[in-house]
């Protein structure tokens, strides 16, 4: 059995203590940081999944206008064109998340934030939006306008 004063034993002891300390400090940091990061992650909350909403009566929507309706917690743009036909799209611009509007002077859907434009099929036709708007289905039931998620 080597003597305690043996330099190799001393080195082993020092190494052991060093690794023990580094490991301990690392574990301590992890134990502090992990709960903080987990705390900052917003918890998943149960959302009511909306598949269809009543937008209102046909007479509530004049020709050549656009109206934002609540589809759960998302804004949906309901457009009634000059011919009186209804179309609905997600009102969230595909560029940077602003809420779009119908401009009857352009005959287009327009985003005020970065001047993005979409046609009345939701297709991005000008400006920075990279993708078309998501299309929603519109059904008429009696005199009610219903909007469905496709």
């Amino acid at each position, binding site marked *: 059995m080597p003597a305690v004063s043996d330099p190799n034993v001393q080195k082993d002891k020092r190494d052991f203590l060093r690794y023990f300390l580094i490991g301990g400090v690392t574990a301590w940091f992890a134990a502090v940081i992990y709960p903080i990061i987990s705390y900052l992650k*917003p918890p998943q909350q149960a959302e009511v999944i909306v598949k269809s909403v009543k937008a209102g009566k046909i007479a509530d929507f004049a020709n050549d206008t656009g109206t934002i309706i609540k589809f759960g917690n998302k804004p949906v743009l309901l457009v009634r064109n000059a011919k009186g036909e209804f179309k609905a799209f997600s009102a969230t611009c595909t560029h940077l998340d602003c809420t779009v509007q119908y401009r009857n002077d352009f005959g287009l859907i327009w985003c*005020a934030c970065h001047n993005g434009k979409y046609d009345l099929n939701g297709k991005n036709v000008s400006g920075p939006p990279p993708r078309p708007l998501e299309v929603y289905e519109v059904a008429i039931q009696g005199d009610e306008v219903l909007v469905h998620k496709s």
Partner: protein
Amino acid sequence: MSKFIAIMYQWLEERFHLSKAVEFMNKKYVPVHRHSVWYYFGGVSLFLFIVQVITGILLLMYYKSGEDQAFESIHFIMSKVQFGWLIRSIHSWAANLFILAIMIHMFSVYFERAYRKPRELTWLSGMLMLFIAMTFGFSGYLLPWNEVSYFATKVGTDIAGVIPVIGEPMLIFLRGGEDVTGATLSRFFGLHVAILPVAFSLILGIHLLFVQVQGMSTPIHMQHLKESEIKKMPFFPNFVLRDLLLWLIVLNILAILAVFFPWELGNKADPFLPAPAGIKPEWYFLFMFQTLKYIPGHILFIDGELFGILMFGVGGLLWMMVPFWDRESSQGKINKKVSYFGLFIVAFIITLTIIGWLA
């Protein structure tokens, strides 16, 4: 009175050896040359930060965070609380002047090459403070929960979400969920009144310590002069008194702006209304906002917005790292590349800001 002050000084001197600090201040000099005026903008930035802390604490006495209360509480401050309109207006104006002063300070340091060895870390800590100041502006902008701030936050946080891999979790982290809601407001409030002030104060302390230890930088063209040939002014009281006089002037400008051009509150945010026409961010984000308008949906194989963010990221990194790639300045030579790059950035920012402002 003076006898009382002398007794107090003696009392403190016995305990804390104040004479050492006074001796240090007496030995400190500020170089005098034709560009000396730029030295004052660091002090002006510091003054405006102090104004922000004081007015911010005052606003905290009445402000209520939350979707249903934030807008109403600011309206209450502006219409019912005595001088509430003034405090809020000063806070908003000082925020803008604060960033303006930091930018002037930064550009003067850049063009004077004051970031060169041995002041690389002073430059980096300053850049970090500019970044924090802009985050201050961005987070504070949402707190009144009005229309423009709501959409500015949607766009700003969505930009963070575009970054590959870390973007999506970062967006959720920033917004406190998928959308900008009351949860975002709470997060931004915490960031604005607790995390950022602590972070800023710490870095400010380090920045000031560096300046005190290393002294003021002299321009490159004066480097070859002998110590005795450089014209100097004592830091205390000459420079300090000039600084204080300028602070007084800035306070007057601030008061004039706050009284004659009171900061508006606008309309309350409504997530179910479209973004209003003519929506713009604060002027210091305007050049980025305007650039994003010009970038098409796709550039080669990547999304235009990602391209824009990468471009600003690379440009910002180059700017921040200038003390490390500009070796010539540290050797006492004027590096033309640095001047051209700086002039290009200044021209780009000014042009895009003006176009964005007029648009």
